[in-house]
């Protein structure tokens, strides 16, 4: 596979080192304090920004999409393929990795990078998101979250300290603070209020427990549900600790809330967060959401969507998605997307993929390659448009393809807030 990405790197900054590199103690954060990250904004247009996020293992370009490698691998793709697809950072799930094989074992192997032979940047979540997704197995108290292990039924307690200990062992470039996640469609305001304050208290505990601040970055997560007041409280509390924070995450979204609330929360947070730190919107992976969030000034996204949907035969295309298992795909000799330069679109027809998806692992791998490529191409285009000061035009063209009959109200409103008129 030969895929683009090199040109852009020449354009925007120093070429990343090829070998795995140890944490660079010389990295300086915006405030001049030693930390494991450097964030340089290369270009701005409106609220959107294109930046270099220099991490111990890689100089990532943002806005950036981070494929999810739950168990230390991205669905059948080799590290070499991921590099060729222009992935800069892969996410690992703390909860899953602690269950199997266990952080101690990963540490024995020299950390997650060495274990999975991924030499670019990594991020691990706190394990807290599984509070929402596996709530029936969890019980949340001030001390932490007690889980019932789905693999062996054993009860395990995840406290902020424990989460830090695990993530320090995994050794990713970015770690997430344990937050008190409440499903965004939970009706109880008291629960959200409790979670907002608790998230800050837990962040303080994470900060004190974090043992490798020189080579791992700890991001706190802004909580507060869909409530403007609670979000403001969360933002204020966390930003009081700004000198110890290399970057911020916006959490509690992508949990089934309505789109209007979703963009509003992103809007409030990105408007309030410091300009010189990266902003990560958690769990976002639909191309439209990514374009909207980038317009609002967010920098990082992660989602299982592109790879999960690929395994079910859904391919991402500029106009939305196509379902490869559908009968109409049989005999269709076009590639998934005629404008796509990915290795799969160069080789395979929809008809061939139609016969592979759902029955053959090979099909799942091929569609995953296409979807990851699609996401990385989208991110490249966003970054280039910002650098070339053509971002509003790009957004208009993108939305016109996605919504030929006109974009939905929430997109129009969100982009208006981002100073882009459709």
């Amino acid at each position, binding site marked *: *596979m030969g895929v683009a990405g090199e040109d852009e790197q020449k354009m925007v900054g120093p070429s990343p080192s090829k070998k795995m590199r140890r944490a660079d103690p010389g990295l300086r954060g915006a405030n001049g304090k030693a930390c494991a990250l450097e964030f340089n904004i290369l270009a701005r247009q409106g609220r959107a920004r294109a930046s270099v996020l220099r991490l111990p293992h890689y100089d990532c370009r943002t806005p950036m999409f981070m494929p999810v490698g*739950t*168990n*230390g*691998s*991205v*669905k*059948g*793709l*080799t*590290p*070499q*393929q991921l590099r060729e697809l222009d992935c800069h950072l892969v996410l690992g799930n703390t909860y*899953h990795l602690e269950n*199997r*094989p266990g952080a101690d*074992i990963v540490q*024995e*192997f020299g950390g997650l990078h060495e*274990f*999975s*032979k991924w030499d670019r940047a990594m991020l691990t979540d706190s394990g807290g998101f599984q509070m929402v997704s596996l709530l029936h197995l969890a019980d949340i108290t001030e001390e932490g979250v007690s889980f019932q292990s789905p693999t062996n039924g054993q009860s395990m307690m995840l406290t902020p300290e424990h989460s830090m200990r695990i993530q320090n062992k995994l050794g990713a470039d970015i770690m997430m603070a344990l937050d008190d996640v409440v499903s965004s469609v939970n009706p109880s305001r008291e629960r959200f209020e409790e979670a907002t304050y608790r998230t800050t208290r837990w962040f303080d505990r994470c900060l004190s427990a974090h043992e490798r601040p020189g080579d791992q970055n700890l991001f706190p997560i802004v909580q507060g549900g869909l409530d403007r007041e609670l979000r403001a409280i969360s933002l204020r509390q966390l930003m009081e600790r700004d000198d110890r924070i290399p970057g911020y995450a916006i959490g509690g979204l992508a949990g089934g809330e309505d789109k209007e609330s979703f963009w509003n929360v992103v809007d409030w947070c990105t408007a309030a967060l410091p300009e010189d730190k990266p902003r990560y919107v958690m769990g976002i992976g639909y191309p439209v959401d990514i374009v909207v969030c980038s317009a609002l000034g967010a920098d990082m996204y992660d989602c299982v969507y592109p790879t999960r949907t690929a395994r079910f035969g859904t391919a991402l295309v500029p106009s939305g998605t196509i379902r490869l298992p559908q009968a109409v795909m*049989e005999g269709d*000799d076009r590639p998934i997307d005629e404008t796509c330069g990915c*290795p799969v679109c*160069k*080789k*395979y*027809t929809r008809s*061939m993929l139609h*016969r*592979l998806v759902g*029955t*053959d*692992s*090979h099909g*799942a*791998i*091929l569609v995953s*390659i296409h979807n990851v490529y699609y996401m990385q191409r989208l991110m490249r285009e966003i970054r280039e448009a910002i650098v070339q000061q053509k971002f509003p035009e790009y957004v208009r063209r993108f939305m016109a393809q996605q919504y030929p009959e006109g974009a939905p109200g929430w997109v129009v409103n969100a982009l208006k807030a981002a100073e882009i008129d459709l």
Partner: protein
Amino acid sequence: MAVPAEKAVISSRRRPQFSLCKEDSKSGARTGCITTWRGATAETPFGLVVTRKGLPSYLTLDNLGKVNGVQGMHVCASHFFGRDALYPREGGSLSEIIGQEDASPLLVLCGLRDPACYNLNLYPAAGREKISVDTEVGVKAVSQQDYIDFVRQAQPDLCLSLSDDVVGSHSKRRRERAQQRTAAWLRDSVKCFGESDGALGSVGLIASVLATEDGEENLRQARSAEALASDPSVVGYAVMGLGLGESEECRKGALQSICGELPREKLRYTSGPNTPLELIEAIECGVDVLDATFVNELTACGMAMAFPADAEGPAVSGTGRGLNLNLWSEEFTHDQGVLVPGCGCYTCQNGFSRGYIHHLLQCRELLAEVLLEFHNTHHMCRFMGTIRAKIDEGVFSEYAKSFRKLYIHQ
């Protein structure tokens, strides 16, 4: 059936050629070379990568290209059934459909029997002229004409004539009829290829001979197949009907007696050998091309080949590891070593550890199979390379003997 390209172009293509290089003095083993007009060459003996729908189980073609020594693929026609009929019906050839690049083509051999999962005659009521085939879209009755039409469209380099493989438990009468049907299909194939409109002009026909337990019958069939050898479309022979639960002696006897009757200068293929030992045995009998089904089988059950593939003794340091590593085993949880130290495959060269692959298997992550298929395919190719070198050096019998000793001992 549309002719896929202009006749003039096709007639300039020629059938694959087999040339014999060296014959072992103490056994039937031999080395040779297959060349095609497309530029694919393969040194024999070698193992075919067994595919599903024309593709390796887990390796994308860019990954397969990273495996040194892969020379050809077995493509099973039964994987290409649509709801109504076999495809490709129009449009591209098989190579185009599976995305094989012309620059470095692998040899494509096509047959109806699936080497990885027996699929013929499981439902007998297909009628006299047809053979019942188990496919993804149900049981299909396939005629000689259906199959030839597929071949014409698919344009493989080599194609097996239809063989009526039946498991040994069938009645004597049924087995006799299988012989007759296989022979009749062969005669018909030779006729089709002979009076070809050009579309079959670059496909090499491999004449199927059905092996049985009856030595006399084997000889008879081999002789009658051999009588067709003068036809230029026949580039080789296939010993079919094996790998269906027959005894070791029976298989060896059949291979020996049939290969003994076949002309030396033609290619020989067999389906069935399923371990490195059986592979060596078939090569001793004079087989040139085999299905490497054991690569798929081991990969699918989380095993990595670790038997000695090089000339110099055991490949795995430390004894007691056995011939294959079962990566599911808990013993690998903490193992930071690569599958086989010194192995040149993508997996071992990039340092993926046994512990990591064990972890991936436990999590049902597809990358486990990808990494294992890299290793196993590479290991099989390396093993075949060693066999070729030993034949060329004239010491194959000694190698086979010591390999057998070591293999059985372990």
